[in-house]
């Protein structure tokens, strides 16, 4: 015989079970997550720690890439103006080597060359966000100072170190080219070459002296343009990395969703099922009420 209390307990337990199922389904739908506590799926939760740390890492790499890209591009476009200026100096020098020119013309060209030297000097001391970009790692002070005792009248006080920045797991790129590779390389010093050219022009030297000075400047120019390719190729490299990180991020998000997220169709179906099951239980409970023989006895008395 099923006791009356037992029957109401059965109903109560069934209600509790379907309540719980409904609650779980509702939480899943509202949070969009299958794993709402570590215990829902411990392995998935531990995996998510890893995935979310990787996603954060990706985001950070992307931020770093965008910050170093703009620094690299600024340096590159500044160097572009140096290249133009040096090309002008070379053609001026070639013109100055022409034997038909008067000394006055040569002096005037020499002044233009000095002007170009000042222009290059100011670019060589370019600062980005307070950091001197061509100073190696001694980047908190201007790398080039005027010093009459130094060859070419300009002294390099930076170093030849480079900084590297991680742009992806296991991938780091150098982010600066020291001035000692660009402007003041051994035997290819832009300032020395410009100074030599200007001296040769001013001192009314032979056309061959001027020609030698132009050749020296060409050498310095070649060194600078070749060292400058660093910027273009680094920007290319990290643009590639950026694309990789963006697709990595998408993939990680998919992985995260597959690990702890819900399949919305399944979750909504679960919720509907839980709600229906609860409604059915409630209805069954309501129809149970009062259906005992006692009621018959009571009615019989009337």
């Amino acid at each position: 015989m099923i006791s009356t209390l037992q029957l109401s307990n059965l109903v109560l337990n069934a209600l509790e079970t379907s309540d719980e199922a409904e609650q779980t389904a509702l939480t899943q739908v509202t949070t969009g997550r299958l794993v709402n506590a570590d215990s829902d799926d411990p392995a998935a939760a531990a995996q998510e720690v890893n995935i979310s740390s990787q996603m954060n890492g990706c985001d950070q790499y992307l931020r770093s890439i965008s910050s170093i890209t703009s620094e690299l591009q600024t340096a590159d476009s500044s160097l572009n103006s140096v290249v133009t200026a040096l090309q002008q100096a070379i053609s001026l020098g070639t013109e100055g080597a022409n034997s038909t020119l008067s000394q006055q013309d040569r002096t005037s060209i020499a002044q233009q060359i000095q002007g170009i030297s000042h222009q290059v000097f100011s670019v060589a001391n370019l600062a980005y966000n307070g950091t001197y970009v061509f100073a190696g790692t001694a980047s908190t002070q201007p790398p080039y100072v005027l010093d009459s005792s130094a060859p070419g009248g300009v002294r390099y006080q930076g170093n030849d170190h480079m900084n590297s920045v991680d742009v992806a797991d296991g991938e780091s790129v150098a982010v600066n080219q020291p001035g000692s590779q660009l402007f003041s390389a051994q035997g290819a010093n832009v300032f020395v070459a410009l100074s030599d050219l200007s001296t040769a022009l001013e001192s009314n030297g032979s056309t061959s002296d001027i020609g030698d000075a132009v050749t020296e400047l060409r050498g310095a120019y070649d060194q600078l343009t070749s060292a400058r390719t660093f910027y273009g190729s680094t920007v290319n490299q990290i643009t590639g990395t950026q694309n990789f990180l963006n697709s990595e991020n998408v993939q990680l998000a998919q992985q995260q969703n597959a690990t702890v997220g819900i399949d919305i169709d399944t979750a909504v179906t679960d919720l509907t099922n839980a709600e229906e099951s609860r409604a059915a239980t409630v209805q069954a409970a309501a129809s149970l009420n009062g259906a005992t023989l006692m009621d018959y006895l009571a009615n019989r008395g009337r």
Partner: protein
Amino acid sequence: MSGLTGTMWIALNALEAQQVGMETTANNVANLNTPGYSRQVPVFQEAPQYLEGSLVVGGGVEVEGIQSLRDNLLDLQISEETQQQGNAQAYVNAMDQVQTLFPDDTTGIGQQISAFFQSINSLSTDPSDTTLRQGMLTAAQNMATSFNNTAGQLTSVRQQLDGDVQQQVQQVNQLTQQIATINANLPDVGNATQEYGSLIDQRSALIQQLSGLIDVSQLTEGNSLTLTTKQGAALVVGGQAYALSTAPGSDGVQHVYSSQGQDITGEISGGQLGGTLAARDQTVPSLQTQLDSLAGGLVTALNTAQSKGTDMYGNSGDKLSNLFEPVTGAGAAADMALAISDPNLIAASSDGTQGSNGNLANFSAVANTVISNGQTPSGAYGNLVFQVGTAVSNQTSELDASNAMLQQLQQQQSSVSGVSLDQEASNLMLYQQAYQASAQVITTVSQMIDTLMNVGAGSS
């Protein structure tokens, strides 16, 4: 006795018997919702036969007693299952709080560790920038704070569980006292289920409550009952209760002692007390140890990285400040703290210049270095998440299984001992009909006696 008087007597006894039946039914219906109540039935038996001349005549009915219907084996099974259920329930309740301390997504230690390593990568793009340096210091501070908070909350969970242990021991003592009092009121021999049904019901309900709190072994002999823990510490022997006691142990938490003064803390395996003790003495301390190891490992590795560089003031080697206060071992997570507040003291440079970021690679490398229990910082945290999750999930499955088992056992018990209104109604009709019939017999006998009396009175 014989003749009409005899018949009258049988009918009167029957009336009385049916009335007892009505009373038991009334009592059953009244106790429909009383927890632990066992349905009672009157035990009817034939009254002794007697001789009428040469005939053997039936003597009617008599009530031998009122019996409570219960199944002792089921009671025992329910008690066992209740111990497991209480154990799992207390453990899950405790650990549900703990698992919120180890989130897997956007908050907590894991997130702060990863934010710290991000701040290092940020700084590497412009190592002399004060804002970025401050950013790394702030991220380091946040990481330390998240360790401090989690360690603090683990400690307070443990203290709370310690308080629970004391309370549960008090509840155990109250229940054993009540059970002993009932034992004292029961005679050692005799059919207790028949005569002392309500006392046995009460005692049974108390034993179930006790089983929810602590592991219990029962030994019954006649009506006398001995309760001990599974490991044999006496709780109740007959009319005597043996109270457990608590006192702080050398490890700073409450230990449970038997009445003989024996430390039984490690032996209690069932009921809420068992679950609470398992969380307090095993799971939470193990998490604390691992958290300390992770914090200590991070502090040591990051200080080592710091020691290899040069700060903005040109300090290197012995002149450098530590990044974190050098804490290791027990309490490392709670005590983790920055040793510097000046961002220029971060040793980012590898060549002594202020613009070098070379030493930051040593900091970043810590993210992929084994620093705690054979794991990287993020791996060690992931492992904590896994452990906490698994502990809760295992015990939740146990709890679900226990609940289902218990429901089934209670249904079984209910079908033996529970009150069914249908059954009571049908009994009520039976008793009523029997009562009416017996009353009819009395009326008839009474008329017959009248007839007899009037014999010879003639036509008066």
